[in-house]
Structure formats: structure tokens, C-alpha cells
């Protein structure tokens, strides 16, 4: 038999559970997905007025999303919608863009952050800071730079993916799909920006007009957040080798009419301070596959010669690139960071790392091995 007290206790439990249930449901945040425009790509470029920002918000259109969820792929009209907003801050740009869209622009699904190389450092900094403070934004989207129109680059249709943003996500997240693994996530970029002694870089995307395709084979170098220069494809491959990011680099050796492909491997940076003279040494160990040789078949002596010559050529290229970055006064390899982590007193004694970097004595040791030779003897 239930007493008055036990009935009271029972009610207390029921009420508590009901209140917990109601508050745990997250009812305040319940937004049906139909009411949301999920931003896949966000872009930053300078606005028409000085000191102003122009932002691109790209989201998949509802018909394209419906077709995508059925697995039939997007077709017909453009699978994505683009809205732009201009203003002195990210929030103002967002307001301007939201005014053009009937649904809630949602920033929790951003997959690509595109940045114009023309964006000034202060605007870039404030944009990064604002994005960083956006709770729904999880710092994992990939970033790329472009010198062309953000809208064109971000919306360029490819036959390989339903949505342009997915093309870039697939490309950057598959490390072995690229010649060099150039993908840079937002948090990695932000971390490099915050760390003294290293300059960030971003893969640069460009559109080729004939034939119509996307090119992602170059790298945009930044000095802190100021765009400095773009490396050509060969230098980008060399950068990949020096940073241990190379996967499918190839090399043609004209003397033997030989081609080495799938050059990949690791790189180790050692920085030393000898009485105020800083020296950096890159130890690069690479493996490759012999794709072809003028004599059709190869001997052990030929392989040794190819390895030696390939190592020399790559080492020369690496040194040339390092000298180029020293001339540009940009340290994408983190020589200063390495010095800071290993010899903090030496790094602290340097007032401006960018003035010191061009004076660093660079050495590169490349050891290229040919492991695979295909089916031919």
C-alpha cells in the first residue's frame, strides 16, 4: 500500500524526469534541415571599399541535395547557390548575405575556406579570428588560396563530384591522390600563423581556360598573413620533398633518358646555432620507381648512377628553392620554429626572425633510392 510520503516521492521523481527530458531535448536549437542553408564553402576576398571584406557563402541548392541524398547525383541547374556579402567585418558580411537567403545560413558544415591572395593581412587576421570564435565552426575545413575570382573557383563544376566543395575535400583529404599532399586544414594554418619562426602556406587553386579544368599544383607563400608569392609546379614539388609531403613526384634524367616516378619519402630538419651562426640541414630520404630508361633494361651500376644523379638534381632543386625562400624572406619550412624548440635561448636572442632567416646557412642531403623497377628485367 502506498503511503502519502511514497506517493509524494514518486511524483517528485516523475516531475524531475519530465523537466530533465524537456530541457535535454535541445528544443531551442531544433531547426529542421529544410530551414537551413548549409554553407559548404566560405570565401574571403577584399571588398570594393578599402578596409572592407567581401565574403562568399556557398551552399547546395535543395533540389541538388535531394538528388544527392537519393544517390542520383546533381544535374540540371547549378548544384550550388552563391551569395556574397560585403562589409567591414565577418558579421556584417554574414548579415548582408543572410538578407538574400530565405533560409538560416548555417556555419556548422563548412568544408572549404577559400582565400583570395589579394586579401590584406589585417583583413585576413580579423576573418580568421572571427571564424575561430564561431562556436559551430570546428576548425577542420581545408583552406586554399586563389588569385582568381573566388566565386568562379569555388563554383567550378567538375565531373568528378556532385558539389565543387566535395571535389576539393576529396582531393585534399586523400593524401596519396596528390603529387604532394598539399591539404592544409584551418587549425593547421591558424597554428602556423600563431607560431613564431614559421610562415604558413596554402595550396593555390587556379582555373585553366583551355581545356576547362581546375589546377591544384602550386603553393601560395605567406609571410605571417601577407601573401608574398606563388611557387611554380616544380618548386611546389620540391617544397613537398623538403616537407616530407611528396607522394607522386616524378623526375626525368636526360643523360640516361630515364624517368623516376612515385618519388616519396621523409624529410628531417636539423637546425644548429654555432656561435651565432645558424645552419639548417635537411636530411631527405626518398624512394622511387623506375618508369623507363633509354637502354630498356637496367644494370645495378646504372641504378646506382641513376640514384646518385637523381639525388644530386633533387638536392640542387631543394637548395635553389631554399635560397628563393630566403630571398623572399619567407620561412615555410619552420627553420626558426625548429630553432626555437631545440635552442630556445638562441631563438629568443634573435629580435626579428625574418631578418635572420636569409642569413641561415642551408644544407640539403638527399638520398634517392630506386626500389621498384616494374616487370621488365
Amino acid at each position, binding site marked *: 500500500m502506498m503511503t502519502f510520503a511514497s506517493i509524494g516521492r514518486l511524483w517528485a*521523481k516523475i516531475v*524531475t*524526469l519530465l*523537466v*530533465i527530458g524537456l*530541457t*535535454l531535448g*535541445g*528544443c*531551442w*536549437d531544433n531547426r529542421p534541415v529544410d530551414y537551413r542553408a548549409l554553407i559548404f564553402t566560405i570565401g574571403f576576398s577584399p571588398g570594393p571599399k578599402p578596409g572592407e571584406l567581401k565574403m562568399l557563402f556557398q551552399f547546395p541548392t535543395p533540389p541538388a541535395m535531394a538528388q544527392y541524398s537519393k544517390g542520383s547525383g546533381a544535374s540540371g541547374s547549378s548544384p550550388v547557390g552563391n551569395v556574397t556579402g560585403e562589409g567591414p567585418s565577418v558579421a556584417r558580411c554574414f548579415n548582408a548575405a543572410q538578407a538574400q537567403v530565405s533560409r538560416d545560413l548555417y556555419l556548422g558544415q563548412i568544408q572549404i575556406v577559400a582565400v583570395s591572395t589579394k586579401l590584406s593581412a589585417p583583413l585576413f587576421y580579423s576573418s580568421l579570428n572571427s571564424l575561430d570564435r564561431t*562556436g*559551430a565552426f*570546428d*576548425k*577542420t575545413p581545408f583552406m586554399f588560396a586563389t588569385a582568381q575570382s573566388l566565386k568562379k573557383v569555388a563554383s567550378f563544376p567538375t565531373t568528378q563530384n556532385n558539389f565543387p566543395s566535395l571535389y576539393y575535400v576529396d582531393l585534399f*583529404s586523400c593524401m596519396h591522390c596528390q603529387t604532394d599532399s598539399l591539404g592544409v*586544414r584551418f*587549425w*593547421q594554418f*591558424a*597554428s602556423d600563423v*600563431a*607560431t*613564431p619562426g614559421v610562415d604558413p602556406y596554402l595550396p593555390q587553386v587556379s582555373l585553366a581556360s583551355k581545356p576547362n579544368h581546375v589546377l591544384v599544383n602550386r603553393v601560395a607563400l605567406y609571410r605571417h598573413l601577407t601573401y608574398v608569392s606563388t611557387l611554380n609546379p616544380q618548386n611546389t614539388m620540391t617544397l613537398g620533398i623538403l616537407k616530407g609531403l611528396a607522394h607522386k613526384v616524378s623526375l626525368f634524367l636526360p643523360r640516361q633518358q630515364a624517368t623516376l616516378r612515385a618519388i616519396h619519402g621523409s624529410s628531417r630538419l636539423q637546425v644548429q646555432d654555432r656561435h651565432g651562426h645558424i645552419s639548417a640541414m635537411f636530411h631527405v630520404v626518398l624512394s622511387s620507381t623506375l618508369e623507363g630508361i633509354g637502354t630498356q633494361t637496367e644494370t645495378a651500376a646504372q641504378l646506382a648512377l641513376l640514384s646518385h644523379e637523381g639525388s644530386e638534381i633533387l638536392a640542387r632543386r631543394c637548395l635553389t628553392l631554399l635560397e628563393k625562400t630566403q630571398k623572399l624572406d619567407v620561412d615555410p619550412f619552420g627553420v626558426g*620554429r*625548429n630553432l626555437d*624548440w*631545440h635552442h*630556445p*635561448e638562441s631563438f629568443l636572442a634573435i629580435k626579428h626572425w625574418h631578418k635572420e632567416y636569409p642569413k641561415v646557412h642551408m644544407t640539403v642531403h638527399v638520398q634517392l633510392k630506386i626500389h621498384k623497377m616494374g616487370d621488365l628485367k
Partner: protein
Amino acid sequence: MAQAKQRLGRISGLQFATTVTAGYMAMGVFYFPRELVTSAGRDGIWAFWLEGAVTYLLMRLIFALNRILPNETLGEFAPKILSKPLGIILGIYTALYHLALGASAAILFGYVLSNIFLPDTPVWAIIASMVLTATYMASLGISSLARTLQAGYIPMAILTFLTLILALSVIRHPVLLLPPVNIRAIPILQGAYREYFLFIGFEVTVTLYPFTRNTDRRQGERFAYWGLALIMISGTILYEGIMATFGPAFIPLLRWPVVSIMRVLSLSGFFVSKWGMLVVVLWTIAVVSFIAIRLWCLAHDLIALVQWHSRYSYPTFLISGALAIIVCSVSIPNAKVADYFMERFLLPWGLGYLIGVPVVTLSVAHFRQSTIQKLRQQSEPNPPTTG
């Protein structure tokens, strides 16, 4: 005395250790290792290990305090040893301490949830739901609470540990895994102090000890040390993962570095790709457990303070404590103010409690051995062996 007897044989040694271990970390883990790295840079790992060593020593001290009168809570025996006024002050201090810790944990995780998952939900609703859940957990008594912790906290801790191993996959700078050798004492001490709210909370033992079975108490102490060892191992992996992923310059800029690394983790191909985020959500268990333990302690300490022993006293103080935590929590306008209060008040007062209370009580007890023996015989005819 009668109450003390009734309470005997409640929880096992493992349950004691689980409750003690769940009584810390939940509050400070979100900041970890920001304060260590901000003060000590790469030396932060030494500061963390120093904190672990200090905690071990303080745990020994607290357990020694518990053994003075093992069948009574500190709130019950402090007035008899230290004098009534001092005992009352200590009781009020302890109650406020639990209240502040519970409120801090609720605010902190409330803002984490609000910032990341529920931006449109008012923080008060998130806090209220957590505190209500904690109240429900605590309302069923220490045995049920301890069993709930075993069923919820331990699996969550194991899952977190496994996830930490996954975190090693996002490491960018393996060189940072090596502990730095250029040790600087002052920054390490500063870092250890500023991050110490990681460990504040294990003093729940002063209330929990009499609720542990007589025969299991020493085993419970040993398990609590093992719990600390596991926390230190997990913390070291977490520290190393965060340090080698974000680097020492970026960590001080992150509001909640642990949440940041969890957000970066993903399992591509798995049906929950944002695995780290799932783990962050599961930490609700840790935070709610922490608040539940605080509420349970708070209610018992208030009972000892006002000497109101009735069937209504526990639920009354429990609900009052929960309401006080909700009111205190919602009065804090944002996470920055919460940081300020924690650093300015909670940390020095908490650390002062952990060092001051056992040192003072043990010192007085040392000179009042005959009173202690008398009290022991009053509270328990066959007291457990001391040592």
C-alpha cells in the same frame, strides 16, 4: 553515533575510489593544458607531473585525516577536535567549497555545450538540466550514486582513453613529444599552480570515508592512488597529443584545448565521423557525476553543520544545494567571468583548503590523542586499525 553505525557497509573500496576519482578532473580538464603551457611553455609537462606528485602527497594527508575518526565525516568530528567555533567555520567553508566547485563545473560545461552544440539554448536551461540530473543521481544515496558512476563514469573514462590514442594520429610535430630538458623552476611552479584546479575535488573523501565498508577502506585508498596514476597516464597522453598537434604557441590561444583536439578528431568511414565530438558530449556524464558528488557532500556537510537529523534533512539540503548551484551558475554572465572567479578565488581557496585543513586538523589531533581515543570508542566500539 547511531547514524554512524547505520552508515557502515555502504560502498566498496572500488566504488570509493571511483567516486573520489570522479570528484576531480571534470572541472579542470577543459582548460588543460592551457594554463600549464601559458606559464611554462614546453616545460608544462613537468608542471603536470609536479601537480600529480603534490596531489599524491595531499591524498596521503587527507587519508590520514580521514583515519582520525573513520566513522565520522570531517564536518562531524572537526568541532569535537578543533573546538566548536572552528568546527563550524570549517563546516561552512566546506559547504561553500562544494557549492563553488559544483557551480564552476556547471558553468564551465554549460558554456562548452552552449558554444559548440546548442548556441540557441539558454545557458540556464543547459545548467539546470545538468544540475537536475545530478540531483536525481545524488537523491538515491551514495550506494546508487557509486554504482551509477561505475556504470557510467568508468566506460566513459575508458572510451576517452582509447580516443586519446586516436588523437596521436593528428600529431604534426613529433619532436614536441620529447620532454624539454632546459627546465625552468619558476614557470613550472606557476603553471602547476594555475592548472591545479584539475585536481581540486578529491577531498570528497572527508565526507565519503565513513560511508565505505570498514574492511574496504584501506583497499579504497589504494584504488584511489591507482585512480590518480591512471589520471596521470591519461593526462600525459592528452598533454602530449595536444602539445605535438597544436604546438606551444597556439595552445594559449585556445579557450578549451581539449575540446579543440576532440573536434579535430574524426573517423572517416565510421558511421560517426566526428568521433571526438561524441566523446565531448559523453563528458556530460563526468560533469554531471562531479556535480552529483558535490551535491551529496554538500547535503551531508550541511546536516553535520546544523545537526538536523531527520528523514527530510537530506532531500531538503540536496534540493537547496541544487537550487543554490543553479542560481550561482546563472549569475555568471559569461565564460570569461567564470575563468576570472576560478582563477582569483576558487583556486587559492581550494588549494588552501586541501593543504590547510588536513595540516591543522592532524596537528591538533596529534596533541589530543586521548580525546581522539575517547571519541573513537564513542563512535565505534571496534574501530578499524589506524595507520
